[in-house]
């Protein structure tokens, strides 16, 4: 039963390519260069994290790929097809779950399925609730569930559409530390079963190293790729492993000195 949902896995799809992507916003304080000349290829089935200081364009980049924000230069393709708007082939998990509060959890998960005129949308939704460990909560409303459960329901809602790629915008940002670590494993479990391409924005360096094949560091104003760090650690990963710690050191150093190197104001 549980596995049948994974069987629909259709080989390797979900390769995302960004070519010379740029994004400018017009605001009342002038033009803001949110993204500039981004070139990045995300391999099908890989787990990639975007990390960087706030305002460096991580979320903009994710929204551009989702088609929620139009880009002003370059192009984004998914499996060779140009992206020109939002679609169910790219699932999106919002930071504040964004479940529809007027629908029950089951109806939320079935929303996209009904949109696609799927037969047995509710049965399919129940299957996804089971996979994400929400059996028995199908009739609850979002406000009755904890933050972690809502985020899982949101994951189920996106995954039910069988997307080629899943875009996660700080999906665990609003959760407490323990729920967060638990959810990291949950997301990895789903990913390892389905091998959906995952692109996740996060503020948490440990989370990025723990989960990703590759961590992309962005630097702000204008948002550009500072560095790409491949994480070559066996899974499941150990947060206290020496190599894990050295990856953390590398990334933190790069983040701290990203953009400019500041001289200390004075020496003792």
């Amino acid at each position, binding site marked *: 039963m549980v596995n049948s949902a994974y069987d629909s896995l259709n080989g390797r799809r979900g390769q995302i390519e960004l070519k010379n992507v740029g994004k400018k916003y017009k605001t009342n304080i002038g033009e803001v260069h949110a993204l500039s000349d981004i070139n990045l290829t995300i391999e099908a089935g890989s787990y990639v994290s975007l990390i960087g200081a706030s305002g460096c364009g991580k979320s903009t980049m994710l929204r551009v790929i989702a088609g*929620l924000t139009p880009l002003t230069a370059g192009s984004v393709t998914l499996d060779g097809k140009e992206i020109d708007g939002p679609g169910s082939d790219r699932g999106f998990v919002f930071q504040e779950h964004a479940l529809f509060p007027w629908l029950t959890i089951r109806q939320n998960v079935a929303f996209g399925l009904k949109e696609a005129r799927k037969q047995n949308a509710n049965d399919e939704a129940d299957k996804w609730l089971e996979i994400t460990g929400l059996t028995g909560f199908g009739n609850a409303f979002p406000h009755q569930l904890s933050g972690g459960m809502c985020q899982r329901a949101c994951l189920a809602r996106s995954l039910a559409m069988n997307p080629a790629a899943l875009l996660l915008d700080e999906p665990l940002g609003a959760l407490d530390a323990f729920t967060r670590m638990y959810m990291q494993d949950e997301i990895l479990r789903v990913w390892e079963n389905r091998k959906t391409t995952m692109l996740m924005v996060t503020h948490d360096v440990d989370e990025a190293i723990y989960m990703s094949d590759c961590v992309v560091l962005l630097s702000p104003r204008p948002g550009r790729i500072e560095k790409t760090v491949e994480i070559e650690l066996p899974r499941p990963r150990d947060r206290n492993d020496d190599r894990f710690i050295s990856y953390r050191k590398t990334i933190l150093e790069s983040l701290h000195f990203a953009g400019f190197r500041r001289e200390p104001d004075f020496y003792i």
Partner: protein
Amino acid sequence: MTSDISFNPQGAATLQSDNYPPRSLSFVRNRMLPIIAVLLALLLQTQIPKAPAQPKTLHPYFTYFLLLALALCVVQLTLSFFREKTRRKLAYKGLFVAGVFLFLSLLNILTSKLALLPPLYFPSLDRIVAAIVEDRALLVKCVLYSLRLQLVGYFCGLLAGLITGTLIGFSKSASYWISPLVRVLGPIPSTTWIPLTLIAFPSALSASFFLVALAVWFPTTIMTSSGISNVPQTYFEAGSTLGARRFSHIFRIGLPASMPHIFLGIFNGTCASFITLVTAEMVGARYGIGWYVIWQKDMMSYSNVYGGLIITATLFSILISLLFKLRDKALLWQKDVVKW
């Protein structure tokens, strides 16, 4: 057993009904209170002679009314020994019901027994109940006429309000052209249009339909459009990433998400429609509850005026209760979030 509840701070915070009425009245006595009050009222009604200034009625109708109330109270009390729900309800409401009958007794003394108030304008309770009972055929007819006017006008206005509200909420050009119109026409009380509608419409009835519809239309439009513009953008974005297109953005996201606002608009519209209904009937209708009240006033038959008012109040409060029931069902998802 009862004092436990009132001293429990958690109970005090969550269940208001546990705090009031005061627990100094015991549980059983609370349930007995209505019967005691009705018996008292009966005693007053039957034992004290009527003042000669009040016209006599065919039957002692208020006595019949009290006997009926007594029977209901006895049934309730009996039931309360078997059903937990009835027991709680009666223990809570008992004091209030008793209060109502004491108030009626006071009115009875003032009007019927002592005739302290002018009998022409303040008829005895006997005469008011008599008016309702003896004029029941005409009253039923009037209620049906009013209901027809209310329901047809109301649903037309509601539908129109939902449509214009949705258009303003979702379409920029509709918002550009319709909103100013709504802003100018909306705040005018719909009864102001009576002189115009009387010449613009072929009959007084169609004019009344229009006025009632107009009264519901404005608040529904305003609250629907403001509800839609207050829907967080994330819901639409989440919908888009799940494959939703324009149609679903409107009907599966925008409208359901703005239901709390819409119901507020409908509630305001309903109240406005009641005012318009009665006013419209007073002006140009034949039959209808508003017409009845005015007609009886012109006939100087104040007992019938009060009878009409009681029927009107009952009718409207039933309609409002139905609306609240519907709202509670539709807004189940935000239970404990909004209260009004």
